[in-house]
């Protein structure tokens, strides 16, 4: 099933369960905290294991693709030349960083704003997200990097489906971008 659909279903189910829970009960809050921390820990371990595998494989195959520039800043298309290893590491590091960001946000909401509900809602989605992550699928579950798992990955989500700003990998786009001379623009620092 589509991860977006399952996310919505999980969210609705969790909302229904959370209605039946007394979030002021210290025992329930304690168990919610334990569940949330365990979920974050499992997610972190999964990503770290994947990261280790990427480093161990050290796949230095070169990949080239063209990324769309930021239209708000008037940027042109940009050629990205990287290795499979660096691409995967950038991707997995982004996922690990998102754990820390989520943790900081939840910490603020729970510890400072005193909400317990968001903590409860976030018990399943980080682990689910980790197991649906392309890098985890390739490196931990050994799935071949073809089809949807072919690098560079296309951005998922509903917005991506309507967006024309997709990553280009065709020979012509890459060849055009390679000799475009779009480097060395001075930045005003």
């Amino acid at each position, binding site marked *: 099933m589509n991860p977006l659909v399952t996310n919505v279903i999980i*969210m609705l189910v969790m*909302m229904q369960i*959370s*209605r039946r829970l*007394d*979030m*002021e009960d210290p025992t329930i809050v304690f168990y919610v905290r334990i569940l949330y921390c365990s979920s974050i820990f499992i997610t972190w371990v999964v990503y770290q294991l994947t990261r280790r595998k990427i480093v161990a494989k050290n796949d*230095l195959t*070169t990949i*080239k693709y063209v990324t769309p520039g930021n239209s708000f800043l008037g940027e042109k298309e*940009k*050629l*990205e*030349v*990287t*290795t499979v290893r*660096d691409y995967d590491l950038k991707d997995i590091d982004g996922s690990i*960083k998102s754990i820390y960001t989520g943790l900081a946000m939840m910490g603020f*909401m729970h510890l400072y*704003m*005193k*909400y*317990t*509900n*968001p903590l409860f*809602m976030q018990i399943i989605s980080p682990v689910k997200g980790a197991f649906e992550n392309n890098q985890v699928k390739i490196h931990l579950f050994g799935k071949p990097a073809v089809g949807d798992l072919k690098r560079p990955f296309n951005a998922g989500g509903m917005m991506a489906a309507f967006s024309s700003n997709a990553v280009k990998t065709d020979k012509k786009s890459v060849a055009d971008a*390679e*000799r*475009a*001379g*779009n*480097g*060395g*623009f*001075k*930045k005003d*620092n």
Partner: protein
Amino acid sequence: MEPESCCYIVGETHSVRSPALTRTIDLKQSPPVIMSSYLEALSKHMEAVNDLNAYYNSLSYEQLKAMTFLERVQAYNWTFELFAFAVLAIVIGSFAYGNAANKSRAKKFFTPMSEYLKNDLNFARVGFRTADGTVLPYMVQHANTWLSTFATGRSAIDSVSVRAHLLPRNNPMSMLMDFVVGLAFPSLVNNDSNEYCEVIVKPNGIYVATENSKINTNAQELLASKFKFITSIVNKSFMSDARDKNYFLSLTLTSENNTLSEEYVYMSELNQLNTFIMHYAKGKDVNEILQKATKFLQFISFTDLPVDRPLSAAEWEAKQEPRVIIRSNFPTSQFEIDLLKEITSLVVEVVDNFTRDLVNKTPDLLITAEFQKKAKHLRTQELSKIVKEAKEAEAEELKEKRQDAERQRIRQLRKTGEQEKIDRKMKEKRERRMRNKQKQRM
């Protein structure tokens, strides 16, 4: 989503609201209250600081006057002042430590590098001579963060300049800010904020076999015609970064080759130039050196085009200069210093051999007439692209200026009341036209 559901639960399922929950709902519903809660927390801390001396402040003037100096000193709570002194001491300490650390790094690298340029690569002059006659092996600028040395006076090479940038260790707060901003907005961080080292070797087109040999007279001609090409060996970890920061690299084709170590790629304007460095590094095992430098070297590039993209034809002409750029991390260990010496020596060897072949007119020259034609074509195309963009930018600027002038004129007319007359005339004209049109229809 979550805060809403939280409020809903509170409102629906609990008949008795706790003070904590009521506060939470209020905070969520009105953002200014959240802001005031931060200010409240801040004012609490400030109050706590003021309360440190509550006893001292409660003493009347007469009581204080009755006390001896020592008694007054003892009655006063010095905690805040001690804290402020501690912060100052940390700032001064970190400044001194940072300066000393950068000085030590600079000395550790530049002293042996200068000696190597003088003694091993046979440059006649190395370093900088000051007004009082002393020779400095290297220069430091901007609180020991920018370092450079210079060498000149050698066959085939006009000069070698070694530039390095170190982190501002004397200002840990700026380093921390750079790090934090870099985490959230990587594009905002300065290109040169990291530590790096750059060795720039400029050829001069002159080759002399011995000290008494005659100097070739066609040096300028050779430089202008035979050194106009781009070929590089780039570490795979820096491919996108190097292309992004260096204009000349963004004009090249990226290709892998079996002749090159797996960790590197060629970036040349034509694939036939890929073998250039290997070809002229006679007697040196390039791959062996590259293999040792996988975690250190970023790229070696032969180029005549600038690092920054030129914005006009004049800038394009002014910035063209044949040179070789070795860019690496800043060498911190003896191994890395030796490695950089080896890479510099390799580049000097390549320039030496290439210049010798050019001067001696060796038949197996890689830079052929056909290649020169292609290189010229690429440069002509790029120049026309830059000229076109410059013209567009100029036209845009002119348009903006005209619009500004027009706005200024209208503002002036409004001030004098002329605009109202013009508007009235225009309105009458429109109405007359409308009436004429209606008459025609009738």
